[in-house]
């Protein structure tokens, strides 16, 4: 936890996350052995005398020179490399002194993959020249780490960031946050206004749009620390500028986009709705056809990005990029969700915009990102920024009645205790008389009314500290419904008659009706179609239990189970005159053989027949209504409905 003033053991972090409702599981621990990996320098390289593919390196690891055999091709004299000495465990295997075709190897040079640093298995990891010989790997990359997978509820967009999770942990343990948005160090003699301009045409879809200009950057691979921060969470490192935008998104939850300024026509960005049929090729190479409901970022001539979802290929940062235009914005969550769904693209950026980013922090994070780009890729940050908005929403104020907290939770919390809990998680108590007037921090857009604050009090007080009591008030019990009584009696009666309960899907295909011979019979032909079924076999709602039960006979017969006595209670559906009709039916299936006379020895077998079923139906009527049913001749099926 780089964002807290104190180290908290990972087990306690997991426990805290669980108690706060952010279910966290350790996906993996990385680099537990990094304190045992030594930085060495290759002093000489020889070919292996008997093996063409192997090299023998003499490696200086501080106090001694080791002989190490490697198969990697990328080693060179003077390279700083990570060395695993005998006894160190790498990916579950203990390194020993080994002989390779007659040559002893006193350790192993490691690839990034072997150190769990990245997925890169090609060649040995070459370290920066200034790493000290004999020091350990963890000096530069920390004592290993744990990757924790956190399930963030959909109302907590603020927790889709390290900072958001750190805030929760900070409030839970009362440990202060250690984080600051760096300020941009501007170069005073150039201004963004000398280069770029911007227009927002659709404020409803983009209420805030901010830009920074960074001149003369050097695009290149990212420094190791930055690569490490991305690779460990499974993001691919692309180049230093793009990596910074991704890293800051992970940190703060604010997605950013960097454009190659010199590729923007007219030096201008326009935030507007796409034209019907407008096309764009995205960074991932896909071409998309847009419509008027989708917001694009365009230059003077064409769309160069789908706002908040993905940038365009034509203007992306590339090896030749010199000048960067950096964007941080706030987009309408609803529109991002609709557009992303319509286009079938979901990105790390769109997910965060959908869940609401902090509109009050857009410009601070823009400055922070510009500064980080300057630090990593060089260049000058031009003076001034573009910040287009129509005024920011004021912070939410919510009134909280302490007695209401206790009335909902069943607790006995004192007002001071409530104030203490809310203060430590960033809520500003403006006044306390007669009720608490509370200002909600801008990142907590899920807090809108009193009950939201009561939940916060409950979460940080601890659900498991709230008492657990039986219902305190008496209650006049409502009598069971007739439907319930009938259903219960059937469920008692039928098993005692040797029937098992089957449950079939409520869907079927039209063919099933045909097979059951009721396709042209009302009401079975009045079936309701599902507009988006999983498959043709499941495309209509069943109008009868008969096809379902025949299917049970079929399935069991295919499995050599010939004696099947089952019943099913379930809904059937049909189209009525102006509405959909839904009825609960009972169906019985009996197939196979039964005893001729249950008491005879030796027993004799006979096929089950209509009279077995008739007996069962009579029993049901007798038990429930205490009367005998009458049976009428029917063309297709005997139906007892209730």
């Amino acid at each position, binding site marked *: 936890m780089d964002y807290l003033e104190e180290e908290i053991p990972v087990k306690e972090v997991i426990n805290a996350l669980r108690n706060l409702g952010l279910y966290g599981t350790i996906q993996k621990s990385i680099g537990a052995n990094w304190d045992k990996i030594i930085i060495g320098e290759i002093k000489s390289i020889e070919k292996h005398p008997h093996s063409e593919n192997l090299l023998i390196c003499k490696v200086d690891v501080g106090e001694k020179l080791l002989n190490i055999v490697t198969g990697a091709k990328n080693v060179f004299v003077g390279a700083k490399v990570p060395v695993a000495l005998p006894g160190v465990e790498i990916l579950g295997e203990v390194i020993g002194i080994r002989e390779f075709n007659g040559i002893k190897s006193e350790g192993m040079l490691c690839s990034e993959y072997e150190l769990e640093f990245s997925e890169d298995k090609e060649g040995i990891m070459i370290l920066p020249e200034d790493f000290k010989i004999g020091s350990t790997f963890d000096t530069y990359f920390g004592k290993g780490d744990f990757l924790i997978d956190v399930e963030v509820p959909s109302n907590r967009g603020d927790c889709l960031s390290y900072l958001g999770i750190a805030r929760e942990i900070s409030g839970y343990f009362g440990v202060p946050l250690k984080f600051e948005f760096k300020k941009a160090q501007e170069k005073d003699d150039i201004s963004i206004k000398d280069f770029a301009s911007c227009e927002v045409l659709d404020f409803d879809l983009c209420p805030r749009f901010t830009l920074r200009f960074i001149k003369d950057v050097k695009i290149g691979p990212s420094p190791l620390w930055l690569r490490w921060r991305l690779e460990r969470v499974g993001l691919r490192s692309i180049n230093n500028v793009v990596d910074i935008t991704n890293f800051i998104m992970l940190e703060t939850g604010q997605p950013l986009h960097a454009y190659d300024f010199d590729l923007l026509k007219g030096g201008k960005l326009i935030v507007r709705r796409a034209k019907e049929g407008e096309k764009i090729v995205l960074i991932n190479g896909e071409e998309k056809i847009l419509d008027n409901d989708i917001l694009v970022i365009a230059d003077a001539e064409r769309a160069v990005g789908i706002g908040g979802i993905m940038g365009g290929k034509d203007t992306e940062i590339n090896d030749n990029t010199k000048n960067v235009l950096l964007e941080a914005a706030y987009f309408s969550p*609803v529109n991002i969700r609709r557009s992303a769904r319509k286009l079938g693209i979901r990105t790390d950026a769109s997910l965060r915009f959908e869940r609401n980013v902090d509109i009050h922090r857009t410009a601070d994070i823009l400055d922070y990102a510009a500064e980080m780009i300057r630090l990593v890729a060089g260049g000058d940050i031009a003076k001034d920024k573009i910040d287009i908005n129509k005024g920011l929403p004021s912070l939410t104020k919510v009134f909280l009645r302490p007695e209401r907290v206790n009335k909902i939770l069943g607790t006995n919390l004192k007002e001071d205790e409530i104030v203490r809990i809310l203060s430590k998680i960033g809520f500003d108590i403006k006044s306390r008389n007669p009720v608490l007037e509370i200002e909600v921090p801008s990142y907590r857009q899920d807090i809108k009314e009193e009950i939201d604050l009561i939940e916060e009090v409950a979460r940080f007080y601890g659900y*498991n500290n709230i008492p657990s009591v039986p219902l305190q008030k008496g209650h006049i*019990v409502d009598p069971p419904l007739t439907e319930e009584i009938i259903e219960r009696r059937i469920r008692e009666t039928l098993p005692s008659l040797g029937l098992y309960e089957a449950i079939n899907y409520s869907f079927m295909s039209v063919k099933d009706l045909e097979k059951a011979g009721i396709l042209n019979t009302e009401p079975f032909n009045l079936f309701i179609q599902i507009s988006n079924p999983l498959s043709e076999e499941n495309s209509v709602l069943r109008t009868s239990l008969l096809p379902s039960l025949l299917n049970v006979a079929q399935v069991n017969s295919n499995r050599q189970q010939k004696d099947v006595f089952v019943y099913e209670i379930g809904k059937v559906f049909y189209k009525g005159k102006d509405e959909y009709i839904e009825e609960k039916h009972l169906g019985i299936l009996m197939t196979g053989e039964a005893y001729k006379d249950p008491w005879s020895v030796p027993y004799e077998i006979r096929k089950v027949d209509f009279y077995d079923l008739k007996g069962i139906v009579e029993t049901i009527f007798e038990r429930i209504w205490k009367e005998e049913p009458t049976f009428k001749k029917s063309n297709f099926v005997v139906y007892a409905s209730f």
Partner: protein
Amino acid sequence: MGFQVVYGPELETDYYNFTALNIPSDHPVRESHDSFYIDKEHLLRTQTSPVQIRVMEKKKPPLRVVAPGKCYRRDMPDATHSPMFHQIEGLAVDTDITFAELKGVLTIFAHRLFGKERKVYFIPSYFPFTEPSAEMYVECGVCKGVGCKACGYSGVLEILGCGMVHPEVFRIVGIDPEKYTGFAFGMGPDRIAMQIYGIDDIRLFYENDIRFLKQF
């Protein structure tokens, strides 16, 4: 404990299944409820929670009901998903219902079902129609909380979701949230049965192999 069994339609309207439960269109929660639609307004209910709304519209508090029934989500069937599954919904509304009582009632239920020795935990969660919301977990019976394959090494089993009825839901059905409070819960009996009986594939419930049915 005085809960009356009630039923509701499986072919629901968008209003009862979502909107009245404080899930307006464009709410992100709708994404996790991939629904079978009949037409623009009608769908197969994705949860038994709409029964809460139907009950509160029809009857005045005090209320104590449970509503079992089938629910549908557009998931391809696999070992843990079925396009049709069951839920049991519960609702209690009265003048002074508290979260402490919610914990009490559900703890009694869990102890009856799993045994008194099993620890019960309530963990914060998010449902648009309850607040505060919680998930109830029971200590894993196989490993006694240490962590094993059966519980995904978490030591606990997720049993149900619950919470205090959201004031917005009360407003929607015309009950005064200042006067009445309430709790609601919803659980998946298929999954609970899988845990109790050690069944590792939910599809077995709907295959109706007579050899499977005879075991219960």
